[in-house]
């Protein structure tokens, strides 16, 4: 079959079309994707994006009605109103603007850390699943060891020893979730390892690199997409928890977890300080969980998914 490239693309196209149809019919997947699109929109357009050092504005719009970092003590702890849709915090900052601006951190942390984890995890998992034997044992024992720490403990220790900031936070979360991706990639690779098309490629004398990237990897995409989506939800939860503990992004940057950290002392009199950032976290996480669940229904991945 592989001699006839045309036939293969037709088959792929049909496969792709079927995926789109099933995806569109899956309520969870569609709602999840909808939430994620809105989240992205907010993350991009919440504030202007100015490239540092060269002072070039690459995104000139801003959705925020007020400066998220501008304090105004006379205006502190205002209840939600038309002027301040979600009220103001203990320093008089507009919570609505801060929630919008916080989307950027959540999306940035979730996506970059899981992208990094995907690159390393997929490589490790597929290499382990494809070569098996000692390579597999060595790699997977190392992954087991990383998974022997509660994720939050591992992440907060890494961030704490390296100094809490955005970059270290992303790296720590990428490290924590690499073994999750690796295990899924390995079990997907194992399940295609003995398929006839892989054996055919071996018999044709294709190189290992070719087989791994062209034959094994494409067949692992389904489970990896599902796991990746669920893990972005995890990462967002973990980012919120770390920021809540003061071990995530540092002020004055607004992140949802950090807003709750700064607001919960005032929760008794001004619950909106906690309620709205919490709502934002829940909405974003629900979005990725829905997408993950929907993709799982549609793709029906073989092998394990770790929740």
């Amino acid at each position, binding site marked *: 079959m592989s001699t006839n490239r045309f036939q293969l693309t037709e088959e792929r196209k049909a496969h792709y079309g079927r995926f789109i149809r099933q995806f569109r019919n899956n309520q969870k997947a569609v709602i999840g994707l909808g939430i994620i699109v809105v989240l992205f929109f907010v993350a991009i357009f919440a504030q202007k994006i100015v490239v540092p050092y060269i002072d070039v504005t690459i995104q000139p719009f801003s959705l925020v009605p007020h400066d998220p970092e501008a304090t105004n003590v006379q205006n502190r702890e205002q209840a939600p109103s038309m002027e301040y849709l979600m009220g103001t915090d203990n320093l008089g900052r507009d919570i609505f603007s801060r929630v919008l601006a916080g989307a950027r951190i959540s999306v940035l942390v979730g996506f970059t850390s899981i992208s990094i984890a995907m690159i390393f995890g997929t490589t490790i998992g597929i290499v382990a699943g494809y070569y098996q034997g000692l390579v597999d044992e060595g790699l997977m024992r190392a992954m087991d060891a990383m998974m022997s720490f*509660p994720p939050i*403990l591992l992440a*907060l220790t890494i961030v704490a020893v390296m100094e809490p900031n955005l970059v270290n936070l992303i790296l720590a979360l990428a490290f924590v979730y690499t073994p999750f991706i690796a295990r899924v990639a390995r079990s997907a690779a194992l399940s295609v390892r003995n398929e006839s098309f892989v054996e055919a490629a071996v018999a044709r004398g294709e190189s290992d690199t070719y087989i791994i990237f062209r034959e094994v990897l494409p067949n692992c995409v389904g489970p990896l997409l599902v796991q990746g989506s669920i893990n972005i939800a995890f990462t967002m939860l973990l980012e919120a928890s770390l920021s*809540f503990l003061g071990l995530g992004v540092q002020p004055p940057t607004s992140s949802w977890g950090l807003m709750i950290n700064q607001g919960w002392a005032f*929760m008794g009199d001004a*619950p909106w300080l906690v309620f709205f950032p919490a709502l934002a976290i*829940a909405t974003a*996480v629900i979005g990725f969980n829905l997408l993950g669940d929907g993709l799982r229904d549609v793709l029906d991945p073989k092998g394990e998914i770790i929740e």
Partner: protein
Amino acid sequence: MAFVNYLLKRFGFMLVTLFLVTLITFGLTKILPGNVALLILGPNATEASIAQLEAQLGLDQPLYVQYVDWVAGLLSGDMGMSLRYNVPVFDLIALRLPRSLLLAVTATIISVTLSIPLGIIAAVRKNTPADLTASMLAFIGLSLPIFLWGLVFIYVFALTLGGFPTRGYVSPMVDPIASIHHLILPASAMGVALTAYIMRMTRSSMIDELSEDYVEFARSKGLSERAVVLRHALKNAAIPVITVVAFQFSYAFGGVVVLEEVFSWPGIGRLTLTAIENRDIPLLQGSIIVIALIYMLSNFLADTFYAYVDPRIRYGGSE
């Protein structure tokens, strides 16, 4: 004995993993910036006294010697002295660990009592409004961080309704009533957070079982639906659920790090955070390794139990 072989193999794996876990813990805590001797002696210390203390603490030794010393100490229950409290790390952990276990175990019990009946009801009434509501709530529950459940419980039950303390711990030995009073909020917050997952698992494995032939057979024998569900299907659905409960316990134990901070619960989670704040390396190493050990053990027990009741796992090859 396939199961004994399986058990030995898993146990061997766990020892290898444990070795790697000590390596990671030691390596991570060694990155922590700050000169330990300087921290102990204060900024006015002379270079000579710093060097002397470093020699005394073994910090002038090569890293692998320090590592071997540390592991040897661990095996004999000696985790060094805490820099912040100036008492053995072992004693600090021995005092704090039971409090965290109390919290995690109570939370697991609460979540099991809530989630299993809910899961069964949702499965039996599959696709009815009751099921959809329960499933939707569980989905939302999965999407909130544990600390937020803590805040919700503080807001509703302590600040609004009143009657519960927002923070602190009382030993059950000193005052059992006050102890339970302090335990209820943090344990329920965590219990509810865990409920979502166990409920989903119970629901889906009950649905699987209810569609099996033997259930149809039991129904056709004329057994009441109640008897079919409780006596036949539940027994088989329990297997994955019990595994999940064990996993959830380990999850709860990981969650104590944040939840203890919310409720000022003086357990091992807060101890870890204190160790980080104070750059207390021996204490940090000790608490991390103990938390990881308990986390690993409960996962190991879950795996083992699963393999014991479901032989397919043992022959499956891929763990």
